[in-house]
């Protein structure tokens, strides 16, 4: 016991892990209590696995057990739209349990482990780029474990794993270990297609690294110098090329599986028939209430998130803001559906929210955090209730 206390006092990482574990435990207990309240209030007797895994979680559960399948004659919504990394890891974990463990619990365990490591990495990243002790940044794991929409990170969804790879990417990039960053991006792109967009974040990181002189951020001379230097750095080029590797591997699989490498994109037609002008048209239709009320909310949510990313640019989180903006623009080319999930799943928004919270007066910060807590309670109830606002 004394030895443990000594390690706790001297080892910052050990201390951080324990604190993160405590926050995670509290957040999950909170979810559990709300489940009990939900069941009592609604007069139901639904299990944890049932309540936590709504909508696409059922598809992931099916894929973990059965892999990719062809569309039925009566249902063209093939599961090729879902990228394989998370499914493969869950399948492997299930195999380790000799197939005994329930698939939902396997998925939830994988997601929870991923978000825990992601939160740890996020804190280490902040401590690296902003300085100070790791414990100064515990607000970030609090948001990731218990903030609004954080239930996605506890269910059978790819979000937690995706956040993990993005966090690892930015941590490696901040340490200027670009090969590792490229590798993390490759895994991210095998988890969700927008992982490919980390290539832009990597280029921004490299640009800032190779052209830093305290002068103007972007000049033609700097861009020219950057390109020339890059061509002389094969390790950098290789790291950049590595970013979309995961997505291309999946596309290769699709070629041999169904004959179409773009199947994950082409299959979307089975979900949606309404088409809008990309981004501007989508946001206009959504924000002005011309679609459904939930999409009006999501439209304004996206506007708010763009403001957060703008603030991140102001606070010099260039690569993160670039990634956040592009990764939100991509879904907005077709619809606002699921953009709340995509936003929390892009990880970088937590840095922006953290900076905003740090920048406001303590009373306002407390008020915002209380609002987040109530929002999370409300959202959790909606989640347990399979509300389509959270699709």
């Amino acid at each position, binding site marked *: 016991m004394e030895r443990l206390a000594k390690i706790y006092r001297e080892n910052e990482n050990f201390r951080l892990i324990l604190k993160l574990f405590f926050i995670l435990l509290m957040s999950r207990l909170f979810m559990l209590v709300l489940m009990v309240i939900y069941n009592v209030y609604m007069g139901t007797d639904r299990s944890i696995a049932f309540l936590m895994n709504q909508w696409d979680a059922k598809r992931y559960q099916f894929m973990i057990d059965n892999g990719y399948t*062809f*569309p*039925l*004659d*009566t*249902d*063209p919504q093939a599961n090729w739209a879902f990228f394989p990394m998370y499914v493969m890891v869950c399948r492997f974990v299930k195999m380790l349990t000799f197939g005994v463990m329930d698939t939902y619990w396997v998925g939830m365990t994988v997601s929870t482990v991923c978000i825990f490591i992601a939160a740890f990495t996020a804190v280490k990243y902040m401590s690296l780029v902003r300085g100070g002790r790791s414990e100064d940044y515990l607000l970030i794991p609090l948001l990731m474990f218990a903030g609004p929409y954080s239930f996605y990170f506890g269910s059978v969804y790819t979000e937690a794993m995706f956040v993990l790879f993005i966090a690892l990417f930015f941590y490696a990039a901040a340490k200027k270990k670009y090969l590792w960053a490229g590798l993390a991006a490759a895994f991210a792109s095998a988890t969700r297609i927008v992982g490919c967009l980390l290539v832009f974040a990597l280029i921004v990181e490299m640009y800032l690294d190779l052209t830093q002189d305290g002068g103007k951020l972007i000049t033609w001379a700097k861009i020219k110098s950057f390109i020339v230097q890059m061509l002389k750095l*094969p*390790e950098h*080029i*290789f790291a950049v*090329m*590595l970013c*979309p*590797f995961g997505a*291309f591997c999946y*596309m*290769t699989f699709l*070629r041999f599986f*169904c*004959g*179409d*490498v*773009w*199947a994950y994109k*082409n*299959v979307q*037609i*089975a979900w949606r028939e309404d088409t809008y002008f990309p981004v501007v048209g989508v946001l206009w239709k959504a924000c002005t209430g011309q679609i459904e009320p939930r999409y009006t909310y999501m439209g304004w949510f996206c506007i708010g998130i763009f403001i957060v990313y703008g603030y991140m640019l102001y606070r010099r989180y260039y690569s993160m803001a670039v990634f956040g903006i592009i990764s939100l623009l991509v879904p907005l080319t077709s619809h606002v559906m699921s953009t709340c999930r995509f936003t929390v799943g892009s990880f970088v928004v937590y840095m922006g929210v953290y900076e905003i919270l740090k920048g406001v007066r303590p009373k306002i910060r407390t008020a915002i955090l209380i609002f987040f807590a109530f929002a999370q309670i409300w959202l959790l109830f909606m989640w347990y209730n399979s509300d389509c606002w959270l699709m």
Partner: protein
Amino acid sequence: MMKKKSVKAAFYAGAVILACFYLLVLWWGKNPDVGLEYRMYYLTHELSDWPGYGKLSYEPGTTEYCTTLKDKDGNERSINVCRRKGKGWKEDQYEGSTNSGKDAYLYYVLNRTAENASYQCEVTEFAGNGRVEVYCNDRKIGEIQGTGTFTFEIGKLEEKECDTIHFVADNVTFCLWSSAIL
């Protein structure tokens, strides 16, 4: 120094290999190896319903009904449901398929060559003062000017080819209930 050079060369080579791999995948993307139904539904969006793999194939003489797979109560239908509709049909198809605009399409891939094929359809609703011209593979085969059952001579239709029945509605809304190539 030598080792550093070889590491550099390895990274250049790795980058080139990755670039070649990506180009190969993109080339595959340009040339998908898919069946007709997949191409028409997922790629060109010519089909409004997903018929299933190989399900555009058609045995001449089979009457199909232009309705949904399930009725309003969610029960499976026991009739041959037409799943070969292209663009131009309204979504609500419980009582037959109504055109949504000027052009509406059906697609057939015959299992065997039909020497003297004809197209037969039953129209249950017809609203408007105009008419509906019916084309098979861009050749006009007849006109619909009201409700009833219509039969139009087509001529020879080859097997394994995608044949298009094209309805051109001139200020008319019509509801197609059944369709067959005889």
